[in-house]
């Protein structure tokens, strides 16, 4: 059965993608799911000590039209990439099983051929056109046991087939590996790709607008259209708002864009110059930098601007706050002892302590639980590299090594990855990297792209 409101939601998301104007839309909800026929759910395992070896052949298109054929291939390609991203499965390259005949149906799987290939699991699925969209069915088969280990069926719009792959990937990671995947998360960042000039300046300055994209760089779209400089976008915990620094009024100020409702909030009510806002983990408060009392200090306020509370009081620069996952501490950058270093303070202004001892450190970003780490940018030469500091251990490790200058790290919600900006591709671009420094992927290509932040 087709869910009408869901179809309009999904097509609404695509409308949003095509338009710079943010209209009242629902967020990109996953497609509805009904349990597949199988009720057996088995955990897939690999050889002892190694991740399960997994094959993801093209889904079977049950309709002969082009859209269904394209969706079948796109879903399997995206699913492969999503599963590869978390490194919880060993993905067998897709070109090595081109010769294995497609399953005649979702129940007729040539297990011997997959066993021959060394696969522990294979994902077989179908895509069928329906009067109002598509029905996508996917099953993870345990090749040795010759039975289905996990199955799901989705119905919804055919407009963005990637969402079926993302949803399946997140469910497989959770059910098979107890890992919260990031396939349905998004990045926000700023870009000057539109090459529009800031108005009322003599020399040409390109506007920088807020953009969002899927975690893998797909579906990039513009969120702000104020034709000025916007910086440091940061998600609200519910993913429905982005708070950022905007020069819309001529000076930096905190703005909140409710990206699906199409509304905006100005919590500072135009008082002072305010920048680098970040939501508290529960979404009720904002920490930010302001010079309203003479020089840059860290403040906290409620989302509506009430209950303003000053945390730092120093003639030095205090800036770039980040919340601990429980909201009970804030890390920030200060040059009160010379060069910029990372400090930690309680939201009531007590308990100040320095935690970094680099030549220059900035942009702390506190990892989500269960990790208790702070990633930051450290001066390592002419440029910067991303380092990670364990709060409990006090030990620091480096995860980029001088390939370009690397700044502005931001954790993925599961703490397994970081987004950052790097000049390694010639211009400033957004990349993602795993917490161990492996798996570097370029997310953006058009124009200059800066200061990423990863949605929950």
């Amino acid at each position, binding site marked *: 059965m087709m869910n009408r409101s869901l179809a309009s939601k999904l097509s609404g998301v695509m409308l949003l993608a095509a338009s710079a104007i943010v209209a009242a839309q629902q967020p990109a909800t996953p497609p509805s799911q009904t349990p597949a026929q199988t009720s057996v759910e088995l955990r897939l395992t690999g050889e002892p000590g190694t991740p399960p070896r997994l094959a993801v052949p093209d889904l079977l298109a049950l309709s002969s039209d082009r859209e269904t054929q394209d969706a079948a291939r796109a879903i399997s390609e995206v699913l492969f990439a999503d599963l590869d991203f978390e490194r919880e499965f060993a993905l067998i390259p897709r070109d090595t099983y081109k010769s294995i005949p497609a399953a005649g149906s979702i129940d007729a799987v040539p297990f011997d051929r997959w066993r021959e290939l060394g696969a522990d699991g294979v994902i077989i699925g179908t895509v069928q056109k329906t009067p109002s969209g598509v029905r996508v069915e996917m099953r993870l088969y345990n090749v040795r046991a010759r039975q289905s280990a996990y199955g799901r069926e989705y119905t919804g719009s055919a407009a963005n087939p990637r969402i079926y792959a993302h949803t399946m990937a997140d469910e497989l990671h959770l059910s098979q590996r107890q890992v919260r995947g990031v396939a349905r998360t998004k990045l926000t960042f700023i870009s000057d790709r539109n090459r529009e000039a800031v108005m009322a*300046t*003599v*020399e040409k*300055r390109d506007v*920088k607008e807020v953009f969002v994209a899927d975690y893998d760089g797909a579906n990039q779209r513009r969120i702000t259209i104020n034709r000025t*400089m916007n*910086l*440091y976008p940061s998600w609200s915990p519910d993913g429905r708002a982005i708070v950022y620094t905007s*020069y819309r009024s*001529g*000076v*930096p100020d905190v703005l909140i864009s409710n990206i699906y409702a199409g509304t905006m909030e100005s919590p500072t009510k135009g008082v002072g*110059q305010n*920048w*680098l806002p970040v939501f508290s983990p529960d979404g009720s408060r904002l920490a930010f*930098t302001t*010079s309203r009392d003479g*020089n*840059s200090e860290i403040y906290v306020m409620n989302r509506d601007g009430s209950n303003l509370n000053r945390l730092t009081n120093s003639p030095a*620069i205090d*800036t*770039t706050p980040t919340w601990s996952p429980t909201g009970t501490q804030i890390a920030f*950058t200060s*040059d009160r002892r010379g*060069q*910029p270093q990372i400090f930690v303070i309680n939201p009531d202004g007590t308990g100040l302590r320095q935690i970094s001892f680099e030549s*220059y450190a*900035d*942009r702390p970003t506190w990892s989500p639980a269960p990790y208790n780490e702070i990633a930051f*940018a450290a001066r390592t030469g*002419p440029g*910067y590299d991303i380092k990670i500091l364990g709060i409990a251990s006090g030990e620091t490790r480096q995860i980029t090594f001088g390939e370009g*200058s690397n*700044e*502005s790290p931001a954790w993925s919600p599961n703490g397994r990855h970081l987004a950052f900006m790097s000049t390694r591709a010639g211009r400033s671009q957004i990349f993602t990297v795993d917490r161990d420094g492996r798996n570097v992927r370029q997310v953006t290509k058009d124009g200059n792209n*800066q*200061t990423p932040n990863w949605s929950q």
Partner: protein
Amino acid sequence: MNRRAYSLMVMAILLSVVVGACSKKVPPVARPMPPPAPVSTAPPPPPPPPTPVSEPVPVAMPPMPVEDTIGSKSLDDLNRDSPLQPLFFDLDSSDVNASGQVVLQANAAVMKKYPAWQVTIEGHCDERGTAEYNLALGERRALAARTYMVSLGIPADKVKIVSYGKEFPFDAGHDDAAWGRNRRAHFVITAK
């Protein structure tokens, strides 16, 4: 030349142009043009022989109308060739150094001549600092320049500040010279 004949000729030409313009699709018809009225002009007199160049004599110049030139310019023209000069900073520093003080003294002198001007001092940084810290550093640079201007007698409400960190470099290069040009406080006249 006969005035009437001349105006008739002009009218005829205009008419033909108008007719031509109004009937683009009609093939052009060859129309006998009235012959040009006979013109009787004397041949131009031969150019005068070149006179020997005399030694230039210094002339007492009237005072340069500097104020009028500046005062009459549009804001864009003013800022394109600004009488208010930028000052430059040392690496990681927001101190107004000796040459910066000279620049600010000159800028203050200009601003005192134009008390109606509103000025914004933009603080800028080079790419060697981080983006986030540079936003605060640029703010501190602009503030240092503003504080010095105020100490020279410029009313505080005439000078606003804003920081752009390292987001809008003036020189896209990646060497000492470029970095030196980008560590600056830049004056923009916003009202006059």
